[in-house]
């Protein structure tokens, strides 16, 4: 069997590599390719193949192999079938640091791109690992942490690319994973690292096998498991980062290839690693062949990363459904609990609400006072009561107040949505984004911009709203047969969100110049929001929040596992669906108004739960207040820091949230 897999992979690999050489602006015949390879002459076709296409195919082979082995190593080390360079945030971290390098130290970056990538990759992996509870973290928890870290890092990346539009315009294609090569220098750099890395891990295969039995059995066999773990994880990260620094972040190879090999029953690393490498190389070259095939179409050349995400996402959905079948409902996540820890000295609830209210008012007043034109508190109050000067009136009533109120209602909607979603999928790290609302909304908005360029931009929120709901519908219908099991929902949601992001990248590349508006939307921005935006979001809050409140005890009961909830006479599936519906509607309305502001849906309810315990109604109210405070403060800070340049509020929220991530990590560590 191993030989069949190996031989099959190699045949596929040779075939795809050959096809890939014929693809490009000029379609070349197989016989030309053969001639170019074995009897090269100084003719243009042969220069195409030997000068540009061959290095591109070879770098595809190297990267594919590196990513596949990195994925397999990470899965073995963490004993988590979902671990890979994408899900551990390594891609996003490496890309962010490279973007920072391009902007601030371009000379240094061109020389040491690999170092930049590895710093970012390692930092992101550590963050995800720490947040997910380290080695004791369940697969779902690690996957969620990876998604959160990825979202935060990508929103910072988008914002930087928007602020430094002229410096970074070239990075977008690479940032979605492009195998495009100038000459052989990429290959010359990468092959020693990748081949040494692969060889090194091949010497450790027997020890890696033992890791599967768990620490104790490994120790009894006289093995220092933590050394091996460090070594394997380090090798995996280096392999992934070499690849990122040359071809950009390419997702899903590290999941796809090892799982195809494991499906054929192979578990021993001596076979698993080399066969994964062959299959990973074949998949990446195949994806790039498809990507190159689009070069003469209206879409233009695609980044290979977009194609792999597209192939990979359905695979993860299938994997999630399969995993849940085998483990009879949620066992792979172990026991999840909504308990997030509380402060030892808990303040009375009414005091917390009061303090939050005062804080909200204070933030609002500060926001109304500050800006290009500084107003005193009394001037603000006068203007609010219609006594201000013409300029003050214009600035307060037309600019600051509508923007502030929109930020506030969107903050409330996102926080409430997160609070409800966490209850619905019974996971304290959940967020409306995990059912694909944000990326679905992004796809909807982009499609509307591109397919109907004649429509006024006022229609974009409609497209976003429909897209957000559509993504959630896809996730829910896929998970319906498993009784909306929280684990399945989460995994399917992650897959749909990832393919949504890939689709957004394709659409942004296709739309070319509209990159800046697209990036503004992707980072999430409350810029120039006015009364109509406020009025569009408000009804959702006024109608849906009371329903969420009214559900009260029923939501609390969802926190128990399904069997005990049923025992309490609760139709679990329907309640879960209703709660999720409320959450999706709120999130879609919010995202349609301001774009993909992330993090509030996670942070506000999480903090609220820590402050007041698990009572649904209390958590709901307090998280709404915290959500409003967060987005209003983020919007205010974004206006002020680089004035007159504006920083999108999405990135400000992410920056405020980053320390919270660190806090979560510390907490996850101490909770063990």
């Amino acid at each position, binding site marked *: 069997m191993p030989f069949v897999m190996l031989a099959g992979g190699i045949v596929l690999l040779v075939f795809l590599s050959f096809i890939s050489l014929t693809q490009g602006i000029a379609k070349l015949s197989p016989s030309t390719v053969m001639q170019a390879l074995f009897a090269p002459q100084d003719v243009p076709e042969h220069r195409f193949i030997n000068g540009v296409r061959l290095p591109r195919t070879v770098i595809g082979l190297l990267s594919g192999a590196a990513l596949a082995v990195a994925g397999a190593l990470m899965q073995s080390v963490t004993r988590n079938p979902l671990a890979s360079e994408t899900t551990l945030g390594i891609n996003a971290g490496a890309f962010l640091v490279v973007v920072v390098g391009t902007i601030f130290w371009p000379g240094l970056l061109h020389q040491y791109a690999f170092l930049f990538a590895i710093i970012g990759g390692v930092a992101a992996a550590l963050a995800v690992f720490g947040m997910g509870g380290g080695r004791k973290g369940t697969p779902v928890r690690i996957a969620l942490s990876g998604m959160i870290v990825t979202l935060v890092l990508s929103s910072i990346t988008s914002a930087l690319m928007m602020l430094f539009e002229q410096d970074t315009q070239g990075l977008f294609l*690479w940032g979605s994973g492009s195998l495009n090569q100038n000459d052989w220098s990429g290959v010359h750099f990468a092959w020693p690292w990748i081949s040494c890395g692969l060889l090194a891990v091949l010497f450790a295969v027997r020890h890696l096998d033992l890791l599967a039995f768990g620490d104790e059995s490994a120790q009894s066999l006289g093995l220092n498991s933590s050394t091996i773990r460090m070594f394997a994880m380090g090798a995996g990260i280096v392999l992934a980062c070499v690849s990122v620094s040359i*071809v950009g972040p390419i997702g899903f190879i590290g999941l796809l290839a090892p799982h195809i090999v494991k499906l054929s029953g192979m578990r021993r690393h001596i076979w698993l690693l080399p066969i994964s490498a062959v299959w990973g190389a074949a998949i990446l070259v195949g994806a790039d062949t498809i990507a190159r095939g689009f070069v003469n179409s209206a879409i233009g050349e695609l980044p290979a990363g977009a194609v792999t995400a597209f192939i990979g996402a359905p695979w993860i959905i299938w994997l999630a459904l399969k995993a849940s079948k085998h483990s009879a409902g949620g066992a792979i996540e172990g026991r999840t609990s909504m308990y997030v820890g509380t402060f030892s000295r808990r303040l009375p609830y009414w005091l917390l609400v009061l303090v939050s*209210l005062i804080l909200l008012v204070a933030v609002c007043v500060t926001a109304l006072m500050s800006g290009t034109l500084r107003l005193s508190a009394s001037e603000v109050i006068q203007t609010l009561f219609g006594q201000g000067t*013409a300029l003050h*009136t214009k600035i307060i009533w037309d600019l600051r107040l509508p923007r502030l109120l929109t930020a506030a209602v969107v903050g409330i909607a996102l926080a409430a949505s997160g609070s409800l979603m966490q209850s619905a999928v019974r996971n304290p790290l959940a967020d409306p984004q995990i059912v694909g609302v944000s990326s679905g909304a992004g796809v909807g908005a982009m499609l509307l911009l591109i397919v109907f360029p004649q429509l006024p931009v006022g229609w974009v929120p409609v497209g976003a709203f429909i897209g957000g709901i559509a993504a959630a519908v896809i996730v829910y219908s896929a998970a319906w047969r498993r009784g909306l099991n929280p684990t399945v929902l989460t995994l399917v949601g992650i897959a749909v969100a990832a393919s949504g992001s890939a689709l957004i990248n394709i659409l942004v590349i296709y739309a070319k110049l509209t990159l800046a*508006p697209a990036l503004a939307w992707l980072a999430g921005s409350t810029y120039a929001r006015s009364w109509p935006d406020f009025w569009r979001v408000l009804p959702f809050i006024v109608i849906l929040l009371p329903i969420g409140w009214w559900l009260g005890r029923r939501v609390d009961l969802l926190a128990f596992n399904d069997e005990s909830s049923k025992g309490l006479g609760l139709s679990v599936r329907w309640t879960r669906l209703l709660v999720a519906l409320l959450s999706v509607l709120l999130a879609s309305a919010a995202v349609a108004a301001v774009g993909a502001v992330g993090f509030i849906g996670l942070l506000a309810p999480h903090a609220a739960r820590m402050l007041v315990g698990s009572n649904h109604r209390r958590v709901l109210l307090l998280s709404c207040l915290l959500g409003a405070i967060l987005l209003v403060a983020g919007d205010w800070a974004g206006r002020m820091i680089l004035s007159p340049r504006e920083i999108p509020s999405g990135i400000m929220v992410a920056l405020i949230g980053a320390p919270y991530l660190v806090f979560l990590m510390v907490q996850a560590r101490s909770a063990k």
Partner: protein
Amino acid sequence: MSYVVRKASLFIVMSMLLVLVSACGSSSKETSTSETNAAASETRASTETEKTDASAAEANTLETRNIKHVLGELPITGVPNKIVVLEWTYAEDLLALGIQPAGVADIENMKKNVALPIELSADVQDVGTRQEPNLETIAALEPDLIIGVKFRHEAAYDQFNAIAPTLIFDPYPAEGQGDQYQEMVDTFKTIADAAGKSAEAEAVLADLQKSYDDAKSKLAAAGKDGRTFVLSMPWVDQNAVTFRLSTSNGLASKVLEQIGLKNGYQSAQFEAYGFTTSGVEALQSVQDADYINITRETEVADMLGKNAVWTGLTFVKENRLFALGGDAWPYGGPHSAKIIVERAVQALTGQ
């Protein structure tokens, strides 16, 4: 406190909050519209009186003009005093007309990318990024006119228009709906009309025509007239060079056609923005043309020197590579057109 009481009080607090928010909102909407209208007409009236006092004769000759732009029509009376420009091309247009704008977006990067007809005065206010210009900074300048571009500023048009009358232009007509060069000239004239500088605009365009005629005779004298070119805007995309190749509908390509040169690059389909983004392989079909490029990145040449496809191209072997400099703005106005033509002639004739 018992559970029930707590629950009840909570509910009251929350519903009060909702009522408060909605009340705030609804009352504010009515007041805001009426007040801003009042405020707007007030400011406009005051500037007008100032102006009539200052130059009564001039204002009399300039009646109200209806200025057409892509999002509608705007009546403008008199000469707008303070103009805020949100896209570089239109700032260049104003400077070409001899007007210093009150505010411009992203001045620092504009100076790097656009060769300007006259120096931008030091007291011109930077109003933030082109994509998200700071509305308050603009409002604080109390402008009489704002000029923006459709693909960036359409979404917040109402907000800009509430600050001052706003003109929006679209330099990228859809297929069959116009021509980028004609659009550039028309927009320049429209801006001049809005600014009360129509006569100056005619002079600038006449000067541009003269540059074209000079260029033609210089090219003819050097035996370079009627040559085929490919216009490229390359940049380094991390590990390879990516080219924006100007298509036949592209503004910069149209400018070079004004002096009798021919664009050798044909795109497979219509490109709304006037360029195709492509790799080095695309240059094979135009290797007999003259390669003209605009780039600020010095790494481009280094990287291409190592590229086997590039070094095999005819125009590379025959060293027919012509650089226009990084600040020749291919999306600009009449002055940018003049710069492109002058530098192209200089490069092609070697003078």
